């Protein structure tokens, strides 16, 4: 038993002093604490990424394969098997779908992962302290790698279909950031609710399944008459439209009030979700 250096002087308390007591009511996110734990966030994210495709034959290729297969099926359905004429504003349908599918798929996967993330981390939660919110955040962040890889697919397809590369492309990160934020916000709510109410296990897959139809993924949103309501009910509408606009430019300009509404809704969800998470966090270890 001599592995630890025995001469180590006892360090100063270096910010480790704290008072443990019951917290009451709503609690805000302690940003300073989150900053202190930033390395842990990185490690958790890295862990999620590196185990994601462990013991799979195709590995990271799944990140590309999933959108390719989905686009193929949707193209067959909408262009060959049905008579529905989808208005794509002049963009070839496969490309049109892909631009909607990439952010959508990120959202769907990351939301599913983060909603169940706290339950999956049960053994950590009941044994050690750290800000629990890192868990759903790292679940969302680890989806980013897949997204970036599948983005390459989008560019390859754009070259194939001779789509011009516009400066709008520079806005892709901005809209992507919005998707990440929305996913985090919903992830906070659902992961925390999931600890107490396992109903979430059924609600989230349902949202994801229905969401693909009610979001402008496969088709454009409804006409001007309904545009406002459509965006106001679903924070993703404006963001997905914006994403498509940053890929194809001109004709695809989003309904801007919709984007702002979406952004506003996201902020409301994010702040309320963080508060809810923080307020219920203290009971996680007791009831998980």
């Amino acid at each position, binding site marked *: 038993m001599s592995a630890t250096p025995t001469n180590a002087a006892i360090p100063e308390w270096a910010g480790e002093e704290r008072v443990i*007591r*019951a917290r009451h009511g709503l609690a805000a996110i302690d940003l300073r604490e989150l900053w202190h734990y930033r390395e842990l966030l990185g*490690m958790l994210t890295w862990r999620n990424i590196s185990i994601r495709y462990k013991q799979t034959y195709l590995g990271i290729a799944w990140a590309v394969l999933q959108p390719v297969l989905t686009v193929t099926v949707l193209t067959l359905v909408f262009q060959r098997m049905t008579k529905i004429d989808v208005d794509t504003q002049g963009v070839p349908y496969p490309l049109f779908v892909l631009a909607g599918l990439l952010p959508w798929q990120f959202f769907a996967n990351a939301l599913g992962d983060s909603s169940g993330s706290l339950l999956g981390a049960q*053994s950590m939660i009941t044994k050690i302290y750290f800000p629990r919110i890192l868990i759903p955040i790292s679940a969302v962040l680890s989806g980013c790698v897949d997204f970036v890889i599948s983005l390459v697919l989008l560019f390859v397809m754009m070259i194939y279909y001779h789509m011009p590369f516009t400066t709008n492309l520079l806005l892709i990160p901005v809209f992507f950031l919005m998707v990440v934020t929305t996913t985090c916000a919903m992830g906070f709510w659902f992961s925390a609710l999931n600890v107490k*109410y396992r109903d979430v296990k059924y609600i989230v897959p349902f949202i994801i399944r229905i969401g693909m139809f009610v979001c402008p993924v496969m088709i454009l949103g409804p006409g001007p008459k309904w545009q406002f309501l459509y965006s106001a009910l679903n924070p993703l509408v404006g963001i997905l439209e914006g994403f498509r606009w940053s890929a194809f430019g001109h004709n695809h300009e989003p309904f801007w009030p919709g984007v702002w509404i979406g952004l506003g809704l996201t902020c409301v969800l994010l702040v309320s979700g963080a508060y809810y998470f923080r307020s219920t966090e203290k009971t996680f*270890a007791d009831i998980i």
Partner: protein
Amino acid sequence: MAQSIISARNISKRYRLGATHHDTLRDRITYSLRSVASGGGDEKTSDEMLWALEDVSFDVDQGDVVGVVGRNGAGKSTLLKILSRITEPTSGELPVRGRLASLVEVGTGFHPELTGRENIFLNGAILGMKQSEVRNKFDAIVAFSEVEKFLDTPIKRYSSGMYVRLAFAVAAHLEPEILVVDEVLAVGDAQFQSKCLGKMGEVAREGRTVLFVSHNMAAVSALCRKGILLEGGRLTKAGPIEEIVSAYVTNTGKGAHQFTAKTRAGSGLVRVTNFEVSSTRGPNVVVCGAKMVFTISYEAEKADLPIQFVVGVFDAFNVRVLYLDSQVDSTLPPNFTRRGKVRLEFGEEFSLNPGRFSINIGARVRGELVDHIKQAMVFDVQEGNFFGNGRMASDKGTILYRNQWQFEPENI
């Protein structure tokens, strides 16, 4: 040191019994509707609540090695959970001045798909080490864990021993100001447990603060200087460890000399129905110097089974003093009737030293465990004239044996 490193002030923790009440939204909704209908406010009826800790206050100074002693359910683990911030107290305050680590959490966050190397970094981060810190200590951690050869193997291929060694190696290099060890929860083999104890001793010698939770009074007495005794969620005694241990030992003796089978295991093919301890002085009385007799009554599902009885005798510190195996040293018949008694007599030249002892009984049939009772009986051994000369035996040691001292003079 003017300030205590830990000073608990009126810590209470309440659990709601059946905390799964509102596990589904439907329950929550029907519950809310019902409480609205009945005027509400009945949510906090006291019979649903369990006070795991009630009004616990104590101080720990820097460098103290404190034993936290108490029976199962006394609130020891809850106290540790509050200290390590896993759960919050319902009320009270507890300032902690320093980095706190616990040896309960070895291997937390280990992922089976990741390699040993990756898990060291991951686990380090989870335990609160900076990555630079892990890098600096990496070689030491690896050397300590003795798994150098398998560093790049996913740990799902590790043996459980390797797994525990690696996990412990990371935790051992944490260098906390306060170390919390919960032996009750620490899984692993005897070797691992002794590694935990060794680490604690080392940490204590460095002048760090240690809180140690254990049922093993020998270990507690050996390692700790101070102690606190928890009973039913309340702190009933705090002070020098000797006082705490003796208070604990006295309290656990309630209901002595009675056969109990609260914790029972085994297939049930044979059941031990009673256990008695007696001596030539009478039933339920064990006196030094009077021959001791154990009687086991049993009932089997069928006749003619070759039953093997095993009796373990433990002292007040929960250390096994005797292990008596009917198959090793007996002239019992090879097959037993459906019901019967087995007597185990001790010779006159042997006795247990005065004090409190407990019994575990096991029964096997062809190697299969058919019955196993922990703490089947607690009994006291009283002072007696063991040596036949009126002198009392010393209270040191646990067994007495009538031996012969001989003198061999040597002429110079």
